[in-house]
């Protein structure tokens, strides 16, 4: 979600380019960046809809968070904020109790297994003060009453391009390689309050695992542990009570469901919804055991008979 008013702003002397450093080495607005919500779609309502999954039916899949009970979700928020709120688009606020409420709904709908919230605003730690759902880990760039500061000013463009918390987070990850197993605790301990000019504070009371055992790649980098199963994927929380039949491999995606649902699914093709095709199907069913040609001959015969009788009657 990007409010998106910077890259193509007339005041940007590098049109359609957004940098996070004054060395201008990385364009954050290039072709390989996917932005799902931009401009006026960035609202508190849409954000909460994405989190909870309550969309209108017409919203495409790319704009939905398609997570399930095994997902690890990273939510990174940055901008202007204050005591228990984060500012959206200069005219709206996301409040901490609304966020906590959304996370609670997510938990009840089994939309995540673990959730990491990182907030880089002023008084960031207040934004997650109301969370109560288990499995949630949250870190903010500053405590209540503290400001968060920008890192450096790009004199070419005339604005500050990156905040300190974000800058040091990026610096941490740039030191790692793909096979490193740095843990979250090393990430959280890497923040130095003198360099940040604020105190990065985090909340781990809702998170069940100790931080030193959680690799950062659980949330960053999308490296997942794969388990090979012979059965359909059920998720970790459900007991395998129902009988699950094999799903035909025409549909390569794994679907959850019980047996009844499977047979119904098999019957539901796109064509079935049309009434003409429904009739054809009925006919076909009936004709399955008979010869179609015999039927045609019977039909022709009855037509000739009818014609003969009508001519005899009219004469």
């Amino acid at each position: 979600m990007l409010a998106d008013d910077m890259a193509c702003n007339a005041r940007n002397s590098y049109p359609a380019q957004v940098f996070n450093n004054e060395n201008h080495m990385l364009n954050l607005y290039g072709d390989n960046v996917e932005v799902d919500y931009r401009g006026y779609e960035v609202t508190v309502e849409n954000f909460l809809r994405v989190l909870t999954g309550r969309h209108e039916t017409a919203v495409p899949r790319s704009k939905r968070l398609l997570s399930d009970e095994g997902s690890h979700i990273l939510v990174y928020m940055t901008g202007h904020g204050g005591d228990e709120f984060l500012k959206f688009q200069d005219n709206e606020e996301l409040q901490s109790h609304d966020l906590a409420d959304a996370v609670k709904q997510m938990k009840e709908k089994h939309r995540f297994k673990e959730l990491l919230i990182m907030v880089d605003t002023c008084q960031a730690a207040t934004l997650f003060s109301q969370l109560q759902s288990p499995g949630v880990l949250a870190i903010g760039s500053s405590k209540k009453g503290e400001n968060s500061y920008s890192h450096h000013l790009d004199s070419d463009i005339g604005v500050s391009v990156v905040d300190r918390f974000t800058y040091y987070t990026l610096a941490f990850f740039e030191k790692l390689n793909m096979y490193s197993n740095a843990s979250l605790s090393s990430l959280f301990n890497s923040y130095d309050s003198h360099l940040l000019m604020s105190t990065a504070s985090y909340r781990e009371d809702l998170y069940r695992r100790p931080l030193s055992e959680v690799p950062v790649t659980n949330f960053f980098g999308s490296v997942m542990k794969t388990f090979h199963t012979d059965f359909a994927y059920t998720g970790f929380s459900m007991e395998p009570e129902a009988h699950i039949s094999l799903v035909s491999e025409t549909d390569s995606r794994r679907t959850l469901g019980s047996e009844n649902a499977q047979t119904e699914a098999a019957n539901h093709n796109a064509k079935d919804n049309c009434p003409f095709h429904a009739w054809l199907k009925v006919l076909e069913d009936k004709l399955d055991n008979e010869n179609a040609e015999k039927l045609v001959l019977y039909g022709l015969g009855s037509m000739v008979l009818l014609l003969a009788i009508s001519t005899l009657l009219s004469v």
Partner: protein
Amino acid sequence: MPAEKDEAKEPRARPRLIIFMASFLVSHSTLFSVVCCIAGLIALLLLPILAKSTYISENALMPGSANPVFSGQDVSEASRLVKDITETQKMGKTTGIEIQRLIIQRMADVGAEVYYHKFQSQSNQFHPFRFFSCDSNSAVTESNSNTSNGLNTVGIIRAPRGDGKEAIVLVTPYNSEYVKLNDALSLGLGFSIFSHLSRVSWLAKDILWLAADSRYGEYSSVSAWLKDYHNPVFFSSENVDANVTHDKDFLNMENKNMLNGRNVDVFKRAGTMAAAMVFKVGEAMERDPRDILTIYAEASNGQMPNLDLINVVHYLAVHRQGFRVNIGKLASLVNSAWLNLVGQILEWLGNLAKNLNPKWNFGISSADYAEGAATVASSMYHQALGVPTGSHGAFRDYQVDAITFSFSSRFYLNNENMQSSFILRGGRLIEGVIRSVNNLLEKFHQSFFLYMMTAPNKFVSVGVYMIGFALLALPLPVVAASLFLNHKATGFTGTEEAKIAFGSWQWLYAAKTVLMIDLWALIASLMPYFISQIPNISPTESTLLWVALSVSILAVLYVILGSPYSHSAQIGALLIVPMCLVVRPLKKHMQGALILRALSLVCNLVMVVIGFPPAALLLMKGFSEGFEGVGIGAVWEVAEFLWVWNSATYLYVFLVHLPCWVLCIHILLHP
């Protein structure tokens, strides 16, 4: 029963406190008014100490955050234009518009939209309705050949990625009749900035550059252009020809003037103006180790531009380009003895306070105090006079924040090397200001609009300087109340018996007197309109005629309408005196000891003499310029000056101050 009595007593007890305080004040009104007046005076004297440092209120401005890109290439363009202008000047004029042609050609080469703007400068006629409308030129359009015509040149750069709703205006005035080196340098600087801005990629607002032809006055050229900008006229082609034929003898141009296929006679606009800057290169006057930038901020009738604009210019000038910033100050005050004395007293007090408690650090040195007081006095004077200090004043009438600044170099600028470094720094400063204003999404609204500067980086806002004026005005209603109550208490002795029957309607007669005097004042203020119609009259004669006519009309009015001389005239005076913030309350009651009476008589006489506006004017001029050169004609000249600039001070003096003064005399001479 007792409960009810208690309840009846309690509500009476509470209002009693307020009434008690009010009656205490009214009964001691003399003491109270003296205390308040002295407190007000002290509050005004303390202004330089109470000044705060300036700061940028609008965070979006971010002055100096981006490095300026104005480079040596732009400076060389400026030098080329300066050379061309000086050569054209040397060649002599044939049509009188070579410089305009040159500028237009250069602007068109850069790719801007260009056009000429013809205008007629205003005459000095007095017209009563000019005070109340901006449309002052409408009466003068059917003019004869001896009005002055000027030709401005305007160029517009459209921001390539902007939305075209707002514009930033740059103005460089120059005297097209005789272009001196300074004017040529201003034009060069303006053009180099203009061409630089046509190539930058960060523009979000359009840029307008007005090269104002100031041969008949800087202000009139800018205000004529602004008036045409804000009043679009939709007319058919016949009227166009009619307008042009008037000027055939002035401009030998064909009706459809084409330049590169574009019509340069059509007035083009660029949206609302976010801010405007009038800049020029001034004379190299002082031998100072740094180059000087002088800022003029006051606009007509005491309006000021938003303080943020001044703060941005000051910040960039001092912290980025190394200029020294000057604001106007009354030079005579800096060296005045009594001001330095006051400064020393305050410095001593400040040191005393610091010794008592190190946290009370509010004292400033006496030299700083004198400078600060001189600057505040100059600011107050210009705001009170209501005359703008530069052509930026024309912008304020349309709610556009504008300032004038003039660059003075510490070296003589005949040499090209000196010129280039000077132009480089000036260009970078202006580019920085434009970049800051470019960042804005809204008009200037965060910082102050009512303020006075005590130094380039210190200001006093309205909440501070209004305290002094409020304290001066506070005793007036209190004295009015005390007079009213005394009058009631002493009964109606001494008035006409016939009026006793009209007990509480006594104030009507007071109101009638006041009304009559106000009417006379109105007639007196309108008289100059007729007097100025008389041809070939000298200022001295005008003044004498004016005074004579006024006095005679006053006498006639008194005779015709009669005069209900009564105590209530005093109340009448105090009814309108609360409007005057300058007139000191005159104490009327003459009962008392002989010494007291003599003292009050002397005070009243002195105040009467000083209060008479022409006398006050002559005295002030005498103090500032020496008494030899002052004549009665100065009164007429100053009055003319005030009404030419549509200054509200003129209205104030005539409709408020003069009636008060006449009423005070009326009361003093009351038997």
